[in-house]
């Protein structure tokens, strides 16, 4: 259980800057996700931390120790790979025992057996120890890979998209299992993923990357509810965020968002976006920021499609000026495509950005 610090860490591949001056402090025992699209620098950061790539500039510390020049095996880390990287010619037992046996200072054989048994028990793979990796399902291989990482009690766990080869259902279960594991072992975990749902559900904090730069670092709630810029707002959330350019004005005492010919009154907008009044604004709208209005006077929109999404219903609607929006409703609400429905925006779930810079205009706590 150790903290990890990136200070001004830069990595270039030829003339491409893969990671630019990253500053990131991960507290001891935290579960931090590095989230971003491919090429955003998240995997590069992990490989730099693991020592699989040399650092061009800056400094990485594990605990108090600068590890820039330490080879991977001297950093006291464990890593789980996307493809699990189990040794196909070794049994599950031998795979899990590998980190104990590979070290210079050997562990006594009965100690190895004891430790492998304990880890295998914790991962629920105690009855698979004699099998070979190819005889296991994807989920079981995943557990073996986690077991191999755990067996040595390393200072930091590095997980590189460990769930992306599993199907949707199993991924959700493993999300839970990994998080439960973290709670029991309380190690520092650095988790790389491109799947915002994974990061949101597991992390104590999330670092969002784009184009080699850290965009935002905060708790899942902060990232989701208070995105610092347009990229973060769009990247997290199940669906893409709809962005509408316009401006906030005062109309009859009510803050109103004007976009072209459309005027949308939004109660509470003044409190949420004090800096946004009277200037060009890009409004970010998620499915849950839109709801069917009860009364009248709201915006009206035509339903183009409805889809069931688990216990919810998502309505795709189009406003008079052609803007497409999603609207989350209860599945009990029966609406047919082609119907016109009144909709309204929920100020607290809206986001507003500067159209020029993409930075947020909301007042964040």
């Amino acid at each position, binding site marked *: 259980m150790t903290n990890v610090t990136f200070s001004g860490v830069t990595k270039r591949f030829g003339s491409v800057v893969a990671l630019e001056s990253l500053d990131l402090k991960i507290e001891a025992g935290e579960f931090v996700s590095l989230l971003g699209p491919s090429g955003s620098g998240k995997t590069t950061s992990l490989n730099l931390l*693991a*020592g*699989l790539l040399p650092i061009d500039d800056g400094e990485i510390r594990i605990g108090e120790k600068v590890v820039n020049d330490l*080879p*991977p*095996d001297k*950093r006291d*880390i*464990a*890593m789980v*790979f*996307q*493809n*699990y*990287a*189990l*040794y*196909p*010619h070794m049994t599950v037992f031998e795979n899990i025992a*590998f*980190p104990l046996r*590979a*070290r*210079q200072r050997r562990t006594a054989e009965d100690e190895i057996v004891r430790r492998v048994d304990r880890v295998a028990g914790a991962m629920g793979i105690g009855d698979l120890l004699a099998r070979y990796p*190819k005889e296991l399902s994807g989920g079981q291989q995943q557990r073996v890979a986690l077991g*191999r990482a755990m067996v*040595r009690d390393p200072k930091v766990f590095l997980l590189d998209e460990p769930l992306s080869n599993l199907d949707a259902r199993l991924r959700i279960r493993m999300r839970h299992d990994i998080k439960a594991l973290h709670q029991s072992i309380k190690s520092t975990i650095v988790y790389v993923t491109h799947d915002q749902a994974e990061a949101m559900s597991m992390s104590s904090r999330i670092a969002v990357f784009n184009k080699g730069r850290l965009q935002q670092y905060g708790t899942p709630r902060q990232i989701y509810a208070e995105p610092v810029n347009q990229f973060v707002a769009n990247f997290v959330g199940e669906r893409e965020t709809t962005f509408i350019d316009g401006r906030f004005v005062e109309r009859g005492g009510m803050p109103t968002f004007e976009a072209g010919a459309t005027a949308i009154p939004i109660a509470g907008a003044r409190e949420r976006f004090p800096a946004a009044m009277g200037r060009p604004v890009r409004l970010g709208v998620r499915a849950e920021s839109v709801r069917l209005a009860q009364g009248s006077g709201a915006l009206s929109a035509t339903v183009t499609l409805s889809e069931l999404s688990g216990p919810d219903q998502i309505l795709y609607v189009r406003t008079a000026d052609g803007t497409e929006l999603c609207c989350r409703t209860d599945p009990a609400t029966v609406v047919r495509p082609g119907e016109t429905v009144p909709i309204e925006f929920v100020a607290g779930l809206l986001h507003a950005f500067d159209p020029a810079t993409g930075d947020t205009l909301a007042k964040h706590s």
Partner: protein
Amino acid sequence: MTDWRARALQRRIANAVIAFAICAVALFPILWGLSTSLKPANRILEYPPELIPSTPTLEHYFYLFETGITRPIVNSLIVSFFSVAFSLLFGTLAGYALARYDFRGRAGVMMAIVAVMSIPLPSLTVPTFILLALIGLNDTLVGLTILYTAYQLPITVWILYGYFRTLPRELESAAMIDGYSRLQVLRKIVVPLSGPGLIASGLFVLTFAWNDFVVAVAMVSSAETRTLPLAIYNYLGFFGREWGPLTASAMVATIPVIVVFLAFQRYFLSGMTGGSVKG
């Protein structure tokens, strides 16, 4: 009978015909060679030829051993064994270096390898003969082993390069994080997982070293260093065409190679068509 079934039946028949034709073409010469080697000398050139000899005899095989085929067999075994061993050793090192390090000039090296694989043996024979003569190794088994290793190293490097590239890099990263050195990774992770690739390239070298006539005929002059293919051609040349001993010696040379190949064919196929290891 429906259209579907009729077509399925036609397809099955076509398949069987193709399968049979391929097997026949493939195996006919060898079976005929075997049959010929078992015929008495006076019936070999009979027309029409018998497919199965009516009066089989082992006389040609006895004759081979009387005329001293043992020494060439031992020579061929020695040369083949060491050629395979050295090719695999150097091929593994070079192939791994090429597969894992993205260095400038790799494309050039690969091109050079391909170029060498394409060079006709006769062209190589002449300069290398001069070379060996200069260092005093012509007409020795050591010299022959060096030549076979050198000739087959490019294809070995290239097969192993292809195979190593199919191994997931993460296996090696994982082992290095857990404390292996680069050489340990090669020895304990890469090599054990490259069985099919090693077998495929080993068989290539083996076949070449065991069967080579062209190089050996240029390099070998004394009877003591004569290899098996040279011994076989002896029966073609020196005493006129002695069909019986000729086919018998060909069989002696052929059967072991075929047995080895069939024993390893599963690995050979998967070694050549890419790795079977999935992370």
